[in-house]
């Protein structure tokens, strides 16, 4: 048995045979290994010790956590960077580079065993070793996700990566932030071998023996230290094409991808030693900028959402209803640690329309067996093909995996009889958006299912409170509002009515997460959260059209702000008939701010329903379906708008931007004041995932804070004559006076 020495708090040293030492990392107080300051200082000390000790044949770095190497840097340390001067950040980078650099200046070869996630700083550590062995384990994923946080690898990663796998592939990996598995990594040259986990140590020892004997590791070190010899044409082409792709994807709003490209190219023409400081400088520039701070915060919002069980902990002990005679051991218990999260086993979806089909497919994708009910056998039969196609869609091959579709077909049960859901523990009703029909169906569902079954409705316009009236037991009822298209939209609103129990909410939230969604709990209110915030924005865009501003200009300003598409394009995408009904619900509720615009029904009457009809505010090319290209603004629209023209207001782009986005802030403030959400952070997460609000602005409240509430109020002043929709609430005015903030970064 080799001797193991728990060397330091984060590290253990084991002596393998033939003079090979193995350093195992286990970072305490963390769920994954992350590169805390302690890990780094421990590593530095250990390398010192080893140098002072007997000559080694090689050093193996490995994680003592199964399925995880290093998940990256310590996020809480990254969060402190914006407050530090650039010089200090650069010093931290230099220290990291120098420490990692020691791994390839030892008198013996060093090798990392990557058996699990190896991300960001973890991969920088790994590629600082002379060699790497990855494993075939499913969790073994390698990548540089820094770009997603608005950063770049700052411990020598950009410099080492380019020398290891080539400039083009390095740019691709670091700019995309995507991960690769062990097999892909070995093909790229990112690792030297990929083996089954149980043979990894043995393989590392063999590689050390071979490289030690041939002194091959010294050749590798030379290659890693030298400048990269790249044909100037290839270099120019790489820059031009990558820059074009980056600008296309980021619209110039995210500085990190371009900085990564520039840093890698600049570093390539120098020695690794000389290239290091440039990387540190670039890292400091990004880390001290506002966008990385926002993206870090958004990352934290996502983490918080994953942990959030949907109800406040003070209520977490509420017992959940249990079937008469059901033993506590049969699934859930009021005394369990997390008493309110019971796993759904037998979900059912009612209604095989577009939404019902999408919801069903997402269940299949997540591994559920699901019962789909539609009273119309033809609709039901028609939906199955599309559901299986979507559920078995392979993102890698961009086509349906037919073998998988066949397996999933066995998990999809369909029936035209509601009685088939008798055994279901969660029923998601997704029939027509008509209140009378929904109420009928919900009442019928309640007749069929067991008393503890959670009943949910997928609706975007029907108040949960009204629908709940149809049920004998409204405590087991909530809304689960999926967005269209279900496969792509991760946001889900879990809507609670006045009688919805905590247990119901917790089950709905947990279930949405198992579908891979990001659920936000909201109190019932017209439009719930996302549509309520969307509608003032859409409404304002049409008001501006009536005021003589061109559609294209409005959309351009919205895109320039960072939206994936402008409000007028979005209208056409949603469908003007759909927008009309949704708008009617909201104007009924918030008529003082959002009057039902006469323009939308005028367009609907003229047959302009948006993309689906080939024309709406814009005209679309005849081919391409939902992806059809905008050809030009529809000429007939001006005529339709003319009777409703408003006085022309000369507007700068900035004024247009204010008119579009400030009403969202105002509505968000009202949502907060009315207690529609449990936490303001939910609003930011919801607008990013549900509205495409730019993540680099951190969400609508974070954006408001970046301007300052006083500035918001000031910008609203010249718009006050437009009516109540531009008037700050009293709460907002109070915040402006005290310079209060919505968020804490």
């Amino acid at each position, binding site marked *: 048995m080799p001797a193991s020495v728990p060397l330091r708090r984060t590290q253990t040293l084991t002596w393998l045979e033939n003079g090979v030492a193995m350093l195992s990392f286990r970072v305490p107080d963390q769920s994954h290994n992350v590169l805390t300051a302690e890990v780094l200082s421990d590593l530095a000390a250990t390398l010192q010790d080893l140098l002072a000790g007997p000559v080694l044949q090689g050093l193996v770095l490995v994680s003592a956590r199964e399925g995880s190497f290093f998940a990256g840097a310590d996020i809480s340390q990254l969060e402190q960077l914006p407050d530090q001067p650039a010089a200090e950040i650069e010093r931290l980078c230099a220290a990291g580079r120098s420490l990692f650099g020691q791994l390839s200046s030892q008198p013996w070869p060093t090798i990392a065993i990557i058996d699990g996630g190896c991300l960001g700083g973890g991969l920088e550590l790994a590629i600082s070793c002379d060699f790497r062995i990855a494993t075939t384990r499913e969790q073994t994923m390698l990548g540089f996700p820094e770009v997603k946080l608005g950063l770049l690898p700052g411990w020598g990663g950009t410099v080492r990566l380019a020398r290891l796998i*080539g400039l083009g592939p390095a740019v691709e990996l670091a700019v995309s932030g995507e991960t690769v598995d062990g097999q892909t990594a070995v093909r790229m040259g990112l690792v030297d071998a990929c083996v089954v986990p149980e043979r990894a140590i043995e393989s590392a020892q063999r590689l050390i023996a071979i490289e030690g004997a041939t002194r091959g590791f010294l050749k590798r070190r030379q290659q890693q230290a030298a400048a990269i010899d790249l044909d100037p044409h290839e270099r120019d082409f*790489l820059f031009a094409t*990558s820059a074009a792709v980056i600008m296309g994807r980021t619209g110039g709003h995210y500085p990190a991808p371009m900085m990564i490209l520039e840093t890698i190219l600049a570093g390539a023409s120098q020695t690794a030693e000389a290239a290091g400081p440039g990387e540190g400088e670039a890292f400091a520039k990004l880390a001290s900028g506002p966008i990385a701070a926002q993206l870090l915060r958004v990352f934290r919002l996502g983490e918080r959402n994953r942990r959030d069980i949907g109800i406040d902990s003070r209520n977490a002990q509420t017992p959940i209803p249990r079937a008469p005679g059901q033993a506590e051991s049969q699934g859930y218990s009021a005394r369990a640690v997390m008493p309110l999260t019971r796993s759904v086993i037998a979900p059912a979806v009612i209604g095989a329309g577009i939404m019902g089909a999408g919801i069903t497919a997402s269940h299949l994708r997540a591994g559920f067996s699901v019962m789909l009910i539609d009273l119309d056998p033809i609709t039901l039969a028609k939906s199955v093909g599309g559901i299986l196609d979507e559920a078995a869609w392979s993102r890698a091959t961009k086509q349906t995996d037919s073998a998988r579709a066949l397996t999933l077909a066995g998990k999809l049960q369909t029936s035209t009889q509601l009685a088939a859901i008798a055994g279901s523990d969660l029923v998601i009703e997704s029939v027509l958006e008509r209140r009378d029909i929904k109420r009928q169906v919900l009442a019928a569902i309640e007749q069929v299912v067991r008393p503890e079954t959670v009943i949910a409705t997928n609706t975007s316009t029907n108040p949960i409170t009204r629908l709940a009236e149809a049920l004998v037991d409204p405590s087991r009822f909530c809304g689960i509002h999926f967005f269209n298209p279900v496969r792509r939209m991760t946001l889900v609103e879990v809507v609670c009515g006045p009688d919805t129990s905590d247990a119901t909410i917790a089950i709905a939230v947990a279930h949405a997460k198992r579908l891979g969604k990001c659920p936000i709990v909201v109190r019932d209110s017209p439009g719930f959260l996302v549509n309520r915030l969307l509608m003032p924005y859409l409404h304002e865009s049409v008001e501006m059209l009536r005021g003589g501003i061109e559609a294209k200009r409005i959309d351009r300003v919205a895109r320039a702000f960072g939206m994936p598409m402008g409000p007028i394009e979005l209208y056409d995408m949603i469908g003007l008939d759909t927008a009309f009904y949704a708008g009617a619900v909201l104007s009924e509720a918030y008529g003082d701010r959002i009057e039902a615009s006469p323009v939308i029904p005028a367009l609907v009457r003229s047959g302009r329903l948006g993309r689906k009809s080939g024309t709406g505010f814009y005209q679309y090319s005849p081919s391409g379906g939902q992806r059809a290209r905008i050809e030009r603004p529809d000429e007939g629209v001006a005529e339709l708008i003319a009777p409703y023209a408003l006085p022309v207001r000369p507007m700068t782009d900035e004024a247009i931007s204010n008119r579009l986005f400030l009403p969202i802030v105002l509505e968000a403030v009202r949502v907060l004041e009315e207690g529609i959400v449990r936490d303001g952070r939910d609003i930011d997460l919801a607008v990013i995932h549900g509205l495409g609000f730019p993540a680099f602005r951190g969400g609508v409240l974070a954006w408001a804070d970046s301007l300052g509430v006083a500035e918001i109020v000031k910008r609203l002043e010249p718009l006050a004559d437009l009516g109540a929709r531009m008037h700050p609430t009293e709460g907002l005015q109070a915040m402006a006076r005290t310079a209060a903030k919505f968020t804490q970064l």
Partner: protein
Amino acid sequence: MHHTSARSPIQTPVVVACCRTAIGRSHPERGLFRQVRGDELAAAVVKEVVNRSGVDPDTIEDLVLGATQQRGELGGNVARAVVLLAGLPFSVAGTTVNRLCGSSLQAFSQACHAIAAGAENVHVVGGVEHMHHLPMDSAIAIHPQAFARSSRGILSMGMTAEHLAAVNGISRRTQETYAVESHRKAALAFDHGLFEDEIVSVLGHDEGGAIVEVLEDQSVRNDTSLAAMAVLEPVFLPKLGTITAATAAPLSDGAAAIVVMSLAEAQRQGLEPLVRVVGTAVVGVPPAMMGTGPVAAVRKLLTRTGIAIGDIDCIELNEAFAAQALYCIDELRLDPARVNTRGGSLAIGHPLGASGARILTTLIHAMRDGELSLGLATMCIGFGQGIAVLVERIKA
């Protein structure tokens, strides 16, 4: 194979016949050859070229076909299948070669090399591509480390052409003017019946699905204009790009074939040779500079043969992209009046593996009709290569 060398007739490669199919668009609903297999197109031209040449089929030693997508209907060494399909004797061997866009010019070149070496005597060569049935970007798994000295962007020929246009300031308008001219020349050539001799009748299907005798290249338009081209969106680089569907060669289906043999054998069989092969060259360039391949290849060929560019009467320069063709014309100082006199691939189409034999066939017919002496065929090749072939007309 040098111009000046006094090569013995047994080691002098000559072309005795060449022909091609009309080129169809690769379109699932409208392509004339959408229901015709690629190997059928190849068999049609091979059979016809053997007939036309009058060569004794028993003397044919090998069929060398170029094809870039060697799978499915063009898989499993399609050349041997074409020998069987075309009814050639079992004694005719068959091999399929791949130099991407230069495949059938490569097939021709290597047959000539074998003859010049005195190793072989009679070959049928050609090329085939069916870009509808076998799309060029599927079922390819290039090793990621092959991009270590370049970048994955080089897989997009369109991006390399965009880069070439950007670096050399070749405007969209200039490219479109060139493309309009390519269509005009091709349409004019059809009007004057100049393609009648080289195009082999093949049955295809019209848009309605009825059979139709295909005698004209499907992509050639006599109604195109700068105004019509101006509204097209860039295809490779949205918004910023200069290359549209009009200034990139269309995806195409087609085949072409050539009978090449030693001068001595042609004389023995009493066949009339059309051209003598003077020389060939292939070359590699940086993959990102794919479109410049002809410049390097032609320079090498000129040095090798001792011939000056001004001495060449007729040039077929494959038009993968207008930008790339313009660059080569400028860089090699070619006389535009001598280049692609019957239109180029922008109009005619670019069935990758067939295009080399196609442009050589068009070149030889143009030399015959115009009684021109020296002719050059050259192409750019994906991943950064160029190929060039120089022929001299043998006066009847």
